[in-house]
């Protein structure tokens, strides 16, 4: 009897994963996903943007990203929603509205969001939006708060070693 909740848990995770596949190219962000993103983008400057539906500053960031993507489709942008898998429909709607569904999109899927945040950055308190700019050698600069398309342009084009993370 004791195993039933666990099985239900696995079943609902599988259902959620199916929902993710149906909604678009969402990938569940779990322990280890951060290292996977780094490995996938080795040698390329890119921006990693963490955002949430409940964060009004993040909505501004979405508009900036929409504009940036239109002007510079060559930039690599990776988005991670820190919402939960049961909000996948709303996440997809918001990204669709900003024509961002074809970017690399992840959604927090572990049971311990605090641990997921810590894997990305042990000095991050969780404020959103949070953007990391990686240069070619994967040194990173962390910035909290909504950025303009111009901020993205200057930080993505700048391939000098970045200042230490704040």
């Amino acid at each position, binding site marked *: 009897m004791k195993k039933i909740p666990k099985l239900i848990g696995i079943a609902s995770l599988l259902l959620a994963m199916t929902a993710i596949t149906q909604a678009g190219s969402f990938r569940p962000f779990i322990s280890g996903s951060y290292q996977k993103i780094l490995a996938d983008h080795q040698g390329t400057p890119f921006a990693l943007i963490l955002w949430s539906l409940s*964060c009004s500053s993040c909505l501004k960031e979405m508009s900036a990203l929409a504009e940036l993507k239109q002007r510079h489709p060559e930039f690599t942008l990776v988005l991670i929603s820190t919402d939960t898998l049961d909000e996948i429909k709303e996440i997809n709607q918001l990204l669709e509205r900003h024509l961002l569904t074809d970017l690399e999109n992840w959604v927090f899927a572990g049971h311990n969001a605090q641990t997921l945040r810590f894997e990305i950055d042990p000095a991050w308190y969780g404020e959103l939006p949070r953007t990391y700019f990686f240069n070619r050698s994967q040194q990173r600069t962390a910035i909290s708060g909504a950025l303009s398309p111009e901020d993205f342009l200057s930080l993505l084009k700048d391939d000098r070693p970045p200042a230490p993370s704040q």
Partner: protein
Amino acid sequence: MMAQKQPLQPLHNTVAAGFDKNGVLWRIVPSEKSVWVDSSADNGKTFGPAVKVNPEPQKIHATPEDPPQIAIGRSGSIYLLYSADDRQKATTFFTLSTDEGRSFSRPMPVSDHADRARNYMDALLLDRNENLYVFWHDQRHELPNGSLALYYASTNTPLSGQFANHAISDDICSCCRTAVALAPDNQPVVLARMVFPGHIRDHALFKQINATTWSAPRRVSWESRALDACPEQGPALAVDGRGRSHMVWFSLGEDRQGIFYAHTDDYGKTLSPPQSLGNPEHLAVHPDVLAVEDLAVIVWQEFDGAYHRVFGIVSADRGEQWSKPAVLAETRSESGQPKLIGNGRQIFLSWVKGQTHEIIEIKR
């Protein structure tokens, strides 16, 4: 009715708890489609069967920053607020039990704009005459700086479902809970994170002066830098019997990030020097504060990459001197925010860790 066994897997680790005048601990536990109330006669060691509050299933919202609310009056009535989808994605519902938790009134929206504007970040307060105050963040005055309006309603006939809505202030940080407490003159005091010009998210104290008037906001913190980001960390507030407001808050400052404590004896006109708390290398967050007579207690949470720990400090002299931080509880699992509750004599930590809800007495 069939007993719901201890159980209840709280949605996103959110539970709210409080004591009645007989020392029985009551709590509200949200799940995906329902909110539940149960009680404990042994300070949280065991709980009786849970009663479902909402008659029809609803999509319930509860996050550690915006949990449901409970208050128990001297009459024994149990007052609840919770958030669910209605015509808007987030709507605050009020319900009340006048029969010791056996049944609850039909849940009613508290906002008179509930069909047009989201409302959330609820707070509940009973004054000494058991008048009910309900506070919430309301999207009806949303500004481009990411702020909402703080609204409230007060009533002595909550079963009527009539909640006359009044605005207290604009420029309230949308994503940070607002703290409320009762002053010795029986008027509420509010501590809120505001969005000041230039995206400065610092704190201000408001006090109700009479039934219709509130003081202008008095700024009480100056740590924040300009930041167009949601900290998702609201302050906490306790007012002691002689009118000292104990305040704790989180800031993302230029020089120092983390949590702070200060007190004021005149509702923000003058302040004690802010004191930083916790280990900034371990992400000290989510402080809570409670005062009973001269005793004041602060708790907060830290994370070292493996363990979530709740630390506590105690002051026997109204917040002048504090004990060294002590670990009250820890877990490797995901946890909720630590909350302090009192029964008039003792102070307890209420904390959801893993799938268990712990009630731990804090010794003086």
